[in-house]
């Protein structure tokens, strides 16, 4: 079992950030393991951007501590972090290549080194022809590619990507997805902040969910989805729907039913300590079972359930006040 400290690349402990009128982050702690894709989730205005800016040392927390590879976060770590902000842009009047060089040098790269790497990336993303063009002549997707390149060019140990897929068409979004996975394999750690729950399931190993300035959930995606299982199964069978429902009525609740030719599909939730075997035993007599599988909640379901829960509690308390 490797030392847990060694596995961790970044951690934030008890971060509090207050603005004049509201608290953006209230005692938030996260821990990001090395070579993982970490999803930072939450509805708009939950405090994700505040946390990300603190991680990038753009602003400082009011209290709490941050560590990068076990060391207290400081200015020397800037060159090891790559940041793609949600609100991102480029100097419109500047040439693409010159601008990419400038931004790479600001991250501490030598000009010659940056030039070499940029050439490689530009070829890979098939935008070499745009090197001498002004940014304002580029399409939005093209600009996003340049921004992505600039973010990863200095091969940072930690990549912070805020809504990296916005502005990309599905093909280019896929290119970026593959790049993220490739970077992970090559040893980078990625923090991904997004509203796109599908990509969270696809890419993330761990997540933290923030709502109303507080962290309300974190852990590995697999574990979380398992925890939020609701004993719900989908069963496909041939036979009479009425017979099926009558046979199962005592031990399970019918959530949904659909007929597809001679195949029936039902979603049922098992009640009490009933197992799928119990259910099968009772329905096998009346129908021919084609398949059964458990429905594990999607991150989308969990997100809506958790965030909605918080909101309804809030709504109730504000009503009673």
């Amino acid at each position: 079992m490797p030392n847990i400290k060694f596995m961790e690349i970044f951690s934030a402990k008890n971060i509090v950030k207050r603005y004049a009128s509201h608290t953006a982050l209230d005692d938030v702690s996260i821990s990001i393991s090395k070579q993982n894709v970490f999803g930072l989730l939450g509805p708009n205005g939950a405090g994700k951007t505040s946390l990300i800016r603190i991680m990038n040392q753009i602003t400082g927390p009011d209290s709490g501590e941050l560590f990068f590879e076990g060391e207290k976060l400081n200015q020397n770590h800037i060159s090891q972090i790559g940041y793609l902000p949600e609100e991102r842009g480029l100097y419109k009047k500047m040439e693409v290549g010159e601008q990419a060089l400038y931004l790479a040098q600001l991250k501490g790269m030598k000009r010659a080194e940056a030039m070499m790497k940029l050439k490689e990336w530009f070829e890979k993303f098939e935008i070499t022809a745009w090197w001498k063009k002004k940014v304002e002549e580029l399409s939005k997707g093209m600009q996003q590619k340049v921004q992505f390149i600039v973010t990863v060019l200095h091969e940072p140990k930690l990549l912070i990507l805020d809504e990296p897929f916005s502005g990309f068409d599905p093909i280019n979004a896929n290119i970026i997805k593959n790049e993220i996975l490739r970077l992970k394999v090559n040893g980078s750690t990625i923090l991904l902040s997004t509203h796109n729950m599908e990509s969270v399931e696809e890419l993330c190993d761990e997540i933290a969910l923030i709502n109303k300035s507080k962290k309300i959930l974190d852990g590995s995606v697999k574990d979380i989805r398992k925890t939020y299982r609701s004993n719900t199964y989908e069963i496909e069978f041939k036979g009479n729907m009425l017979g099926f429902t009558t046979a199962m009525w005592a031990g399970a609740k019918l959530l949904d039913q659909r007929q597809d030719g001679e195949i029936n599909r039902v979603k049922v939730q098992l009640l009490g300590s009933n197992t799928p075997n119990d259910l099968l035993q009772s329905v096998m007599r009346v129908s021919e079972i084609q398949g059964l599988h458990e429905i594990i909640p999607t991150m989308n379901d969990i997100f809506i359930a958790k965030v909605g829960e918080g909101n309804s509690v809030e709504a109730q308390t504000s009503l009673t006040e």
Partner: protein
Amino acid sequence: MNKIFLIIQREYLTRVKKKSFIIMTILGPLLMSTLLIVPVWLAMRDHEEPQKIEVVDDSFLFRDSIPQSKNVKFIYSEITIDKAQEDFYQTDFTGILHIPSNVITGGGAVKFYYKEQPGMAVEEYIKSNIEEMIYNFKLQKSNVDLKTIRNAHTSINLITEKITETGSTERTSTGVQMTMGFILGLLIYMFIFLYGAQVMRGVIEEKTSRIVEVIISSVRPFQLMMGKIIGVALVGLTQFLLWLVLTFSIYTAVQPVLFSGVNKEKLQKEMVKEEVFKQGANLQALKMDKPGLYDNKTYEAFDAFKSIDFVSIILCFLFYFLVGYLMYSALFAAIGAAVDAETDTQQFMLPITIPLVLSFVMAQTIMQEPSSSLAFWFSIIPLTSPVIMMVRLPFGVPIWELALSMSMLVLGFIFTTWLAARIYRTGILMYGKKVSYKELWKWLFYKG
């Protein structure tokens, strides 16, 4: 430090490479040398078409006696005014001057008829000559001797000399000091406005194009702000130097071509008047060589010029020019950070433009009384001192006042930079929010 240098370099290069910079750099000297050349040329040039004026003199007083000049010729005819008017277009006269018989009593108006409007100078010439002739005529009639009257007129030359603490005297001429102070003050005023606004626009550009967050994940907001301010300052200095060099090369190149063959002596006098403010030191030498060329007035200007300590004025100018700009441009940067678009800057611009415009307006009054307490206070307060002190300097300012003013300006610069940095770092990350002064005040106290 390396990063701030990168920022300065980018800010400088992108601006210097712009078309507008190149155009301004060429147009500026053209305009300035035009300003230098045209007045001289106008003074030199032979005047408009000579006027040939038919005089119909009903009073018979002025016959053949109105003085002729190079540009105005009078021809006396004995016809009635009605006839003269009737025939006007059959003759080659450019105008008819009708002097009624009762002109002496002041009853009748002298009338001038023309085909094409003559210049002010011609009208003035006719008016003053006729007036003088009537004046002389009346004096003679009252048996006053004209010579006595002329002798009674005395023209004096007021020479102002300053006695310094060491007891030596210096010749001064307020005209020279005024012009010099005014030009220097004006330069500082323009520089702060032009380049301060450039800093502001640069910050707004970074904010609206959303690049700022990418950059401040690599450098501190303060580095970005200072890099921009210094980069723009270097652009300003470059432009200023290019203007100086180009203006004088154009001036020296054009002047012999334009004025060849013109009355040399008069030209040189005019030139001296022009150049006396620009090239004082060189001209002093010139004056020593050919003292005979210049009249008294010019001499005095030279003496006054000699009394101005150019080295310290240039050093002071550079100081006020740079530190004044740095102080104001920090505020301009803060405004740029607080707004989303240039159209929103109005409300915040006011506190900056008021002291600047005020100091420029005050400059006129200060020139009249360069040692008044008003002048003192405005040259100590950092927001107005860059312009006002420049206006006062050529008149001589006590060392302790200068030292106080300079230290206050440096303090002012440190203070506005501190203030601006705090507004800046919060403002650049604030999108789509209408910011009020109250909001800005809160930003000052946000932690890191």
